[in-house]
Structure formats: C-alpha cells, structure tokens
C-alpha cells in the first residue's frame, strides 16, 4: 500500500495530471470525449481502490452506486432545462451514499468470497430494479436532454454541455478525489481501515469496532463512485441499466488491478491503459478484422495482467521512482 507518495512519486502524479490537462489542446471532439470518459472511470476506480486496496473489501458491486447516481441525475434534471450541479451533484452523491450504507450494512458483515458474491448480488438487484421496471425508461435507458450547469444566482458559471469545460471539470474532480482520498487514508480513520486490511482480528483485539470502520469506508467509496456516475451521465446525457451491470463493476476492478491496487493514483494509469486498449482493439483502422472480435484479445489481456502483472502499472511506476520500502508485499493478508 502507498499512503503518502514521496516527492518523486508525487512529481510523477502531478506530471500525469498536467499532461492530461494538455489533452484538449491537441484532441479533437472524439478524443476529448474519450479522455473525459477515462478521467471519470479513473475517479470510479479510485473509489474502488479505497475498498480493494486499502480496506481489504473486494467489492464486486461497485457499479451499483455509479449507476444509481447517474440515474439520479436523470431523475432530478428538469425535462427541458438544465439541472444546477450545485444541488444536483450533492443529491446524486448522497443517494449513492445512502444506497452504499444500506447495502454495506448487510454485506460488510460477510467476508472473503461471501463479500464478493453478496455485493455482486445486491448490485444485480439494483440492475434489475432499473432494467425490469417501467420506471426511468426500463431497459431502454433514459436521456438527460439538457446537461447540468453550475449556476449561482441565475448566472451560469460552467456549462457541462461544453466539452472542454466539462473535461477540465472532470480533471479537477479527479485531482480533488485523489487529494481527498489521500487525506482520508492519512487520517486516524485511514490508519484503522488499513489495519483492518492487514489483520482484522488484531484490530478487533485492539478494541476497534471494525464493522463500523468498514461500513464507513464502503459508504465513502460509494459516494465517490456516485460522483463518477454523475459525471458519466453528463458525458452523453444518457443513462442505461448497463451502468449498474456487473461487467461495469468488473471493468472498475480491472482498472484498479491494471493500475495497481493500493496505490490510489494507479487507477489513473489503469483507466488510460484499459480504455485506451479497448479503443485500439475496437478500431478497424488499427487492428483490422480483429476489431470484430475485440473481446477475445481483451480477455487474453485481462488474463495476462492477472498472471504476469499482479501489482499493476502503478506498482511498476512506484517501484521505479520510489524506494522499495514504500511498496509492501502483495500478501499482507493473514
């Protein structure tokens, strides 16, 4: 686990974020949208890293909160007018947090394989809730016709319909998410959840009510997933049940592992790597007929990462620029 990046590592992270800041200068609309998606998925995966990499909770239902917040934006948006993000965003994030508290209060009681399956099952329940009912468009999904704006006293400050503005807003949220999660991890609370990952029995013996700590961590992660979901819904102004699906949770997990779990900044690299690769594999211009069968090379890639790169890109970067003691061994679990 990496909690406080040293100066060199911090410089690398800052450089990555700065580089991402230059994207709108060079990119056309298509690439700008692609990179916006990457940034938002990075926020989503970063929130999952708090659970997988630092609390030791392998949640396989994280898309539930991502998708729920996306749907909330649809629900709170007036049909022909823009929602004001100043209140819409807190509402969406709060909804994700409430759902995370409800689902977490049950699932955090379980451990190991159970936790994985229970979180998956609850996420699936949410998926069917949106998929099978007529409510919010059912399986067809629903539109957000006018994208949200940031407005104060009737003056529009930021319009999320503007691609460049929205890109920088997403980048800003990514940086803020990183810094806030870093603060969480450095706080006494963060020390406790990391203790739980290493040895929950010991934390119990020390007198910590680990249930509450795990639950709070689950809720925090759910709320940041909600932030990502809110932003994701604003990319295309379209939400569909697929946002809550288990493959979405799987993708988030893959981004965390590819980026390097327990590094917090890793998901940024993971998102660039995963979404970038998917884009390449789906492009007829680059890979020819393989694009028709892109899931096969993607699946092989996922398997290869598990077998050959278990500490991910972030782990590799950290090892390059940071002293070895920062990166602890993988198997801290008892």
């Amino acid at each position, binding site marked *: 686990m990496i909690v406080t990046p040293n100066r060199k590592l911090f410089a690398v992270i800052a450089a990555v974020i700065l580089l991402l800041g230059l994207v709108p200068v060079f990119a056309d609309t298509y690439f700008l949208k692609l990179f916006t998606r990457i940034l938002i998925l990075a926020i989503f995966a970063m929130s999952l890293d708090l659970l*997988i990499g630092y609390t030791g909770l*392998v949640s*396989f239902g994280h898309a539930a909160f991502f998708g729920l917040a996306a749907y909330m934006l649809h629900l709170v948006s007036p049909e022909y007018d823009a929602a004001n993000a100043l209140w819409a965003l807190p509402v969406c994030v709060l909804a994700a947090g409430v759902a995370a508290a409800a689902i977490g209060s*049950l*699932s955090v*009681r*379980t451990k*190991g*394989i*159970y936790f*994985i*399956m*229970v979180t*998956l*099952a*609850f996420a*699936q*329940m949410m998926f*069917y*809730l949106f*998929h*099978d*009912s*007529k409510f919010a468009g059912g399986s067809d999904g629903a539109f957000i016709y006018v994208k949200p704006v940031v407005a104060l006293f009737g003056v529009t400050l930021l319009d999320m319909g503007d691609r460049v503005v929205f890109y920088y807003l997403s980048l800003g949220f990514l940086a803020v998410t990183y810094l806030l999660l870093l603060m969480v991890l450095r706080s006494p609370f963060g020390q406790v959840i990391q203790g739980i990952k290493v040895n929950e029995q010991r934390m119990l013996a020390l007198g910590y009510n680990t249930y509450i700590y795990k639950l709070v961590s689950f809720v925090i992660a759910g709320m940041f997933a909600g932030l990502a979901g809110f932003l994701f819904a604003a990319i295309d102004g379209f939400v569909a049940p697929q946002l809550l699906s*288990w493959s979405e949770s*799987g993708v988030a*997990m*893959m981004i965390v*592992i590819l980026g390097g*779990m327990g590094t917090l900044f890793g998901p940024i690299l993971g998102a660039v790597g995963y979404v970038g690769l998917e884009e390449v594999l789906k492009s007829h211009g680059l890979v020819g007929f393989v694009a028709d*069968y*892109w*899931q*096969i090379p*993607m*699946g*092989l*890639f*996922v*398997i290869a*990462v*598990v*077998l050959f790169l*278990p500490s991910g890109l972030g782990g590799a970067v950290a090892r390059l620029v940071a002293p070895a003691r920062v990166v602890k061994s*993988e*198997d801290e*679990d008892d």
Partner: protein
Amino acid sequence: MLDPVFILIQLLNGVQYGLLLFLIASGLTLIFGIMGVINLAHGSFYMIGAYLALSLTQFTGSLFLAVILGIPIAIVLGLIVEHVLIAHLYDRDHLYQVLLTFGLILIFNELQSVIWGDDPHGVPIPEILQGSLPLTDVLSYPYYRIFVSLACLALAVGMYFVIQRTRLGMMIRAGASNREMVETLGINIRLLYAVVFSIGITLAAVAGMLAAPIESVYPGIGEQVLIICFVVVVIGGIGSIKGAFLGALAIGIADVFGQAFLPDFASVAVYALMAVILIWRPSGLFGRS
C-alpha cells in the same frame, strides 16, 4: 381465483428450475469449497452446454445423443481450462480469481458469438418427451419438464452417493476440510482439484444441455444463471452441497412464483430473499463461518 392446479404447476416449475439451478450451483460450491476458487466463468460452461446441445442435436438428430457426446467434451474442456489457467489461481487472492475468470467470460462470449452468432435458437424437445400430462381440462404439464426434474434429481442422488460413499468422495470431503493433511496422506491434491473442477463445470454444462429445449439458446444465458447461482450458494453456505440443494429449491420456487404473481419484481424478490437470509445467518444456512 387461485386455482390449486395452477399453483401446483407453478410449484412444479419452481422445483424443476430449482433442480436445474442445483446442478450448476453444486459445481460452483464444490469449486469454492474444495479449491477455494471463485469461478465467474461457471455460467459460461452452462452457456457452452446449451450451445453444444444445439449443435449436437442438429448433428445427431437427438438430444439424448447430444448429451452423451457433450459430456466428454465438457470434461475435457474442464481439464484443459483447469490445467492452463485455474491452476495458477490456487492460493491467490480472490480478487485475481475474479478477474481471470472475468477475462475468460469475455473470451467465451466472443467465441460463442463467432461460432453460433447472436440470434436466439430453439432446441427441439425429443419426440418421446413431447406432449403434456393433462391435469385438468385446460391445464397440463409438459413431459419434458418432468423429465428434466427427474434427470436432475437422479444426478443429485448420484452426487450424494459419490460424495458420501466412494473413495473419490472421501478425498473430496477431506480436501474440503484440510488440504495439507490430504497432501500429507499421499493424495495428489492437484489431480483432485482438476477432477473437481472438471466435474463442476460438466454439471453446469449438463444443466445447459437439459435447459436448452425449455429456454431458447441465446447469448448471455450464462451470466444470468451465474448470478442466480451465486445467490443460491450464498444462501446455502459456501461449500455445502446440502445448502446448495435447499438454496436452489428456495430460489427456484421464489423466482417462479415471483414471475407469476409479481412480474415486475420477480428478479428483485430473489435478492431480497438473500438479504433476509444474510441478516439471519451471515454465512448462509449451512456455511462454516
């Protein structure tokens, strides 16, 4: 209003669906319980079974021949997948097991689409099992569903016999409770794992073959069934065959009655049942905490 025969039919459907789920979930729970591996691709083997039934029935003209030919294919496929991929996952974090088998799903799904296309297909019911058992003047129950229930039941009894009464079953039970001890006693645990994995996925494939004439064969059938089977395993308790049996029946009946009476919330009802059981027993009905 509520016709008792209608209720009976729903109950029979629920039991039949539950028994089918049991075949899949028992393999899943064996693989968890004995090998400590979470196999997301389990549903893919159900799908492969269904598509094998489709192709082999077209090829041989008989579902029975298709099943007989399909079983060895599934066994060999299981041994290959275990040897090439799953063997690298023992003793690794569940997270990596989830991811690797997630990658496998992507590959299997795409292969399915390449080989069989994306259109749904029907598999004909064998001729001797066509028709229905009349229950009243208007209601009847299809023979094929009765056959599926009986076949699943026979497999369940067979499995019980193998696990409780044979040497292989003894090794499986021993492997589930203490791996090191089993190895010390000179049993080749790797071979045992390969056999268990192969049996587990073959059960799933057989379930897919039997289900093919009831549900049409379409892309994505594996995933739906996988997650329902997770619920079954969670309810029953990981590693418990008995739990999987009861869990599967409970879910099968809950789902069928949900579809009949609350169609909008049927899929949710199943998960709600799981939530209630988890509040009551966090490690399932027969799970070891």
